[in-house]
């Protein structure tokens, strides 16, 4: 027996022992994929490119959780503990919040995109079709990040290959100076042009780069470059001598033509159309952002999905307080009266909301709270929940107090508070407020409808919302085409594109070519694209930002259709109920314009804000980088 054991042991040691050392130590990891392995399987390359898609920066988006960024531009009042309405100046950069020296300067991201493109090109096991599409997607992402940089900072170093440090102790050869602003725009435009036919023509693909996206992005970039060239003359000090900031005015026409051509190519391809499914135009407008099934308008999104980990809290933070699903949470973002009164009347004219006949207390009485907003652009109630609206099929109940028969106001300090009036118990404040200083209580008198998810459970912490972040949609392309055509003097063409967007909004009378003005273009983008990450960039490229946010203690404008009217403070509109049993106006509604006590400063946009500050650390590392003007 022993012999057998011995011989087994010898046999065993002879056959299995003494492996080659290199083989023995070289164990394949079970948890890490090596570069070669990733770039040999299209499914793994897809997950690599997904990470790159995930890192696209947005200034405003419903999914970040920092929803108060919407309130920096006077489109909304943020009712949370938020200092913006008490500060004059703001850095208008991203991320930038509470850290003004931070600007967007993500060359780590650019390097990884460059590496991605190089590795896909070098891959041997991918099919030619896969390689072409992945490379084109990488180039779209790179063009996109340069567009995001140029609209924040002006010209930046243009680096299109992965740079590697050689450990020589001298990194100077890696330093690149800033390119001209126009060169970055040219690069973005030419890249998008080059990849558009490689990308698939699949309009139902919303999360990855497509032919339609390349064209939409091209029209946006060219439009930005064109308007900086044209309107840059209004701010002569916002330039640098070698063109790192500023584009010569002579280039404007060329860029506008490029923008128009790209937009027309997309329009004529017939792949996309305006979303027109619901009969109620306001609901239809709100549904553009909610309907993920065969949505013909949406071109490019950041998608979210329930129970996948990628959900966001926009509905949780912004659900009206009267219908909240999560106790004391919601109502953070309140659209401003400044924005609400910008929506025009159905006869194409502008007017402040009719709340009184001259004196502030000479009220106009309304039977129902929503009557005040009747006869206006349907996009108003698709963007904003006004008093009297329903959300999740329940009343959102907004009123600031009762006006008694003797003209005195009775209000409370708790949502839906009951008080005794002449022996009867009466509710004196809406279940959604507004109460001054009460977080979430509709302090501007309005709530958000755009992006606000009406699905049950979207306001619960454990569920949240899967409403997608729409980055490009067809209506913007139409407005890009209209603006470019207008700037090129083709007002009839511009009127035609505007008509499509305005018809969908319920405006029955088409604008004639002579009615298409710069003010109209500015206004149309403001109401169609509010809260969609446009207004800051639009105001900057039109060089209107320092005019509109001029730091003056301006009152609410009475000319909401005028592009240059200052809007520096957010105003509120508070509904009151008349409580006068037996009186003629009992249970009617009146409105008062209010400036919240928390709005203590008027916003100023300095010339130095047109381009974000490049922080000192970046300049220390690369002294070739010039500072932006007025900084």
């Amino acid at each position, binding site marked *: 027996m022993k012999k057998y054991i011995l011989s087994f042991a010898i046999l065993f040691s002879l056959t299995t022992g003494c492996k080659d050392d290199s083989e023995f130590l070289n164990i394949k990891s079970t948890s890490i994929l090596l570069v070669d392995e990733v770039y040999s399987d299209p499914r793994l390359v897809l997950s690599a490119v997904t990470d790159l898609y995930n890192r696209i920066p947005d200034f405003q988006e419903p999914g970040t959780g920092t929803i108060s960024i919407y309130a920096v531009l006077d489109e909304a009042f943020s009712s949370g503990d938020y*200092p913006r309405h008490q500060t004059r*100046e703001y850095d208008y950069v991203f991320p930038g919040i509470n850290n003004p020296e931070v600007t967007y300067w993500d060359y780590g991201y650019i390097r990884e995109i460059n590496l991605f493109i190089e590795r896909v090109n070098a891959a041997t096991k991918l099919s030619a079709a896969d390689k072409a599409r992945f490379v084109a997607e990488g180039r779209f992402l790179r063009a996109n990040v340069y567009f995001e940089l140029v609209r924040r900072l002006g010209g930046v170093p243009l680096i299109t290959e992965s740079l590697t440090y050689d450990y020589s102790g001298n990194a100077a050869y890696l330093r690149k100076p800033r390119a001209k602003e126009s060169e970055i725009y040219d690069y973005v435009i030419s890249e998008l042009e080059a990849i558009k036919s490689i990308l698939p023509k699949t309009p139902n693909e919303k999360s990855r780069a497509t032919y339609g996206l390349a064209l939409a992005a091209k029209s946006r970039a060219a439009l930005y470059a064109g308007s900086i060239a044209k309107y840059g003359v209004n701010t*002569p000090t916002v330039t640098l001598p070698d063109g790192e900031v500023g584009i010569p005015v002579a280039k404007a026409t060329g860029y506008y033509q490029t923008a128009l051509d790209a937009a027309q190519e997309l329009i004529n391809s017939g792949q996309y159309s305006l979303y027109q499914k619901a009969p109620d135009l306001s609901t239809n407008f709100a549904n553009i952002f909610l309907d993920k099934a065969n949505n013909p308008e949406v071109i490019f999104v950041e998608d979210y999905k329930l129970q996948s980990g990628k959900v966001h809290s926009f509905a949780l933070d912004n659900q009206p307080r009267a219908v909240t699903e999560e106790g004391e949470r919601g109502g953070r973002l309140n659209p401003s009266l400044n924005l609400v009164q910008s929506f025009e009347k159905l006869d194409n004219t502008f007017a402040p909301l009719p709340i009184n006949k001259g004196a502030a207390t000479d009220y106009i009485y309304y039977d129902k709270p929503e009557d005040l907003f009747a006869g206006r652009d349907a996009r108003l109630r698709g963007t904003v929940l006004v008093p009297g609206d329903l959300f999740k099929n329940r009343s959102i109940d907004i009123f600031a107090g009762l006006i008694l028969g003797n003209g005195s106001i009775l209000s409370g300090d708790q949502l839906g508070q009951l008080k005794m009036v002449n022996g009867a118990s009466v509710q004196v404040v809406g279940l959604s407020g507004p109460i001054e200083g009460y977080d979430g209580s509709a302090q501007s008198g309005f709530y958000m409808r755009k992006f606000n998810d009406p699905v049950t459970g979207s306001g619960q912490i454990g569920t949240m919302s899967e409403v997608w972040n729409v980055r490009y949609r067809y209506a913007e392309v139409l407005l890009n085409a209209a603006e470019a055509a207008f700037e090129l003097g083709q007002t009839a063409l511009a009127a035609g594109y505007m008509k499509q967007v305005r018809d969908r909004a319920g405006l029955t009378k088409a604008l004639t070519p002579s009615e298409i003005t710069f003010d109209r273009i500015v206004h149309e983008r403001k109401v169609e694209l509010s809260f969609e990450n446009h207004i800051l960039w639009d105001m900057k490229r039109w060089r209107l930002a320092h005019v509109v946010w001029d730091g003056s203690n301006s009152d609410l404008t009475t000319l909401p259709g005028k592009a240059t009217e200052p809007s520096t403070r957010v105003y509120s509109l508070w509904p009151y109920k008349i409580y006068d049993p037996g009186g003629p106006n009992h249970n009617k509604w009146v409105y008062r314009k209010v400036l919240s006590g928390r709005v203590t400063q008027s916003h100023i946009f*300095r010339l130095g804000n047109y381009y974000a500050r490049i922080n000192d650390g970046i300049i*220390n590392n690369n002294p070739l980088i010039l*500072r932006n003007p*007025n900084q």
Partner: protein
Amino acid sequence: MKTYLLLIGTLLSLTGCELDNFEPPKSTFEGRLVYKGEPLLMQSSNVAFTNNSDFPVFLELWQKAYNNRSSIRIPIKQDGTFSSLLFDGEYKLIVPNGQGPFLWKKTAANTPDSLNVTVQGSQKLDIEVIPYYMLRNPKIAINGRKISGSVSLEKVITDATNGKAVERVSLYVNKTQFVDAGNSLNKADLAGADIKDMANVSLITGDMPALVPAQAYVYARIGLKISGVEDMIYTPVQKINL
């Protein structure tokens, strides 16, 4: 036993980390922005804790001792003074491009010229600059509930390349002594094109609104907006009894 542990813990936490701590800066560097010895008056700074960019006008100090440099911003207060706590050392002082209602020297490369400042203990320094305009002889009076003011504009920089036109003159009224373009209850504007006599510009506001809560006085001052220059220059704040 627990009480002892707590006591020992507290004692330890009180004594720890002495070596790690730096001395805080304690040299006061203060002064004024002046033109021929007269301070230039500007907008009040609204310095929120989290936002150090919210200074209407500021100076930048760069400490020379370190390679990795970033600036220290010093806001100018509405009476033209500034003050900052610093470490002793060598600094360069600049006024960044586009700051202030005055001209600051530029280098050939169009970057702001710098001034060497040596901080050795607390010290005062008045910085001489050349304003585009000076406001002279401000007079502010009350007439019923209207506030009227007059001022004389002295154009200091008159050459063709650097001289600037007047965009507007404004009279601002507010409840507190912080009164300027961004802080006013009532105001009157006069566009530059409507000014007939630079030596005698007069303005009158509309009726003052009711003050809530009521107070028997207001503050007023006159500001000048120069075209192409963001920061306004102001007259001293004046208290007016209603």
